[in-house]
């Protein structure tokens, strides 16, 4: 599978889907990025990993030795996926979204996402995917997605609170803090996505 460094530095991605290239660029350190792969990252489905947010936030398709699995069905919970024991990921296919961005609040020591939010708009398909916060791993914020249908802008989600129920509380951050961070990171991601994508669509 493709290494983090190769995705981060891909000229094709930088031109057509820079939001995706930005995700592995923020993973770990230079040596981790020269060793770790996208397949390993999403098969592991660490609840604080970055790639699951990109896959769910772009509506990727995970291609395996047996079938094609939409990201919406792939991530089934903390460190769990739809993969069967004898099934291996061979490819991940991403649609191009002009308006897309990832914003990560890095844990200052580990570098993993305390909260990371990936947003995208592709025609009517609007996605807001959150990693690092959910006690069941990566998830979509439908309340934000609904509000963004009217206008894909940070303003549209102002005042919408994300409930702390079902979010992680640990020594690094409690559920209320994570809930707050989701709103903050989502707004930053939306600002970056609209700056990148320009006018309508």
């Amino acid at each position, binding site marked *: 599978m493709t290494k983090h460094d190769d995705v981060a530095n891909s000229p094709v991605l930088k031109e057509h889907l820079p939001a995706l290239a930005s995700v592995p660029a923020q993973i*770990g*350190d*230079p*040596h*981790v990025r*020269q*060793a770790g792969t996208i397949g390993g990252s999403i098969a592991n489905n660490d609840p604080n990993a970055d790639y699951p947010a990109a896959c769910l936030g772009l509506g990727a398709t995970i291609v395996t030795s047996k079938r094609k699995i939409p990201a919406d069905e792939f991530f089934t919970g903390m460190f769990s996926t739809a993969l069967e024991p004898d099934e291996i990921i061979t490819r991940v296919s991403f649609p191009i979204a002009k308006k897309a961005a990832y914003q990560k609040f890095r844990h200052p020591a580990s*570098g993993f996402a305390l909260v990371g939010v990936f947003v995208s708009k592709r025609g009517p398909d609007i996605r807001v995917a959150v990693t690092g916060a959910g006690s069941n791993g990566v998830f979509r914020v439908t309340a934000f997605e609904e509000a963004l249908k009217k206008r894909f802008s940070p303003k549209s989600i102002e005042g919408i609170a994300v409930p702390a129920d079902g979010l992680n509380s640990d020594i690094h951050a409690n559920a209320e803090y994570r809930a707050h961070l989701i709103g903050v990171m989502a707004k930053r991601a939306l600002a970056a996505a609209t700056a990148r994508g320009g006018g309508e669509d």
Partner: protein
Amino acid sequence: MPTVSMTVNGKAVTADVEPRTLLVQFLRENLRLTGTHVGCDTSQCGACLVHVDGHARKSCTMFAWQAEGANVTTIEGVANGNTLHPMQEAFREHHALQCGYCTPGMIMAAIDMVNRKGNELDDHTIRQELDGNLCRCTGYHNIVKAIAAGARAMK
């Protein structure tokens, strides 16, 4: 037990090892090249950095068999006889070590950094690139100075 073969510091080596043998174990225990250190065993600290086919790799996070047929360089392989590598010399000159535990990994990371980023490295780049190398003693300042100087000396 499977056989692994690779070139380490220019010498061809072959050994029978358990499949789960890590590259760092192979280097330290089979070859007795104990300059490569283990600080964490979980890919965090960089004390185990070696070059595999010219790329810096954390040798605690790969199996020996993953280096089958590869060209491996450890800290023992960077000097030229009794003449230190310019990066080693820079670490000595700038007092970039105290206990020395992190030093082999720091030097292997620094050489890799120059190979990828060139001979003129600013402090910001060096600090970012050292994200995966931890030092519990020095506070990093002299390491950063040494790497900038070593990088220029490697021209």
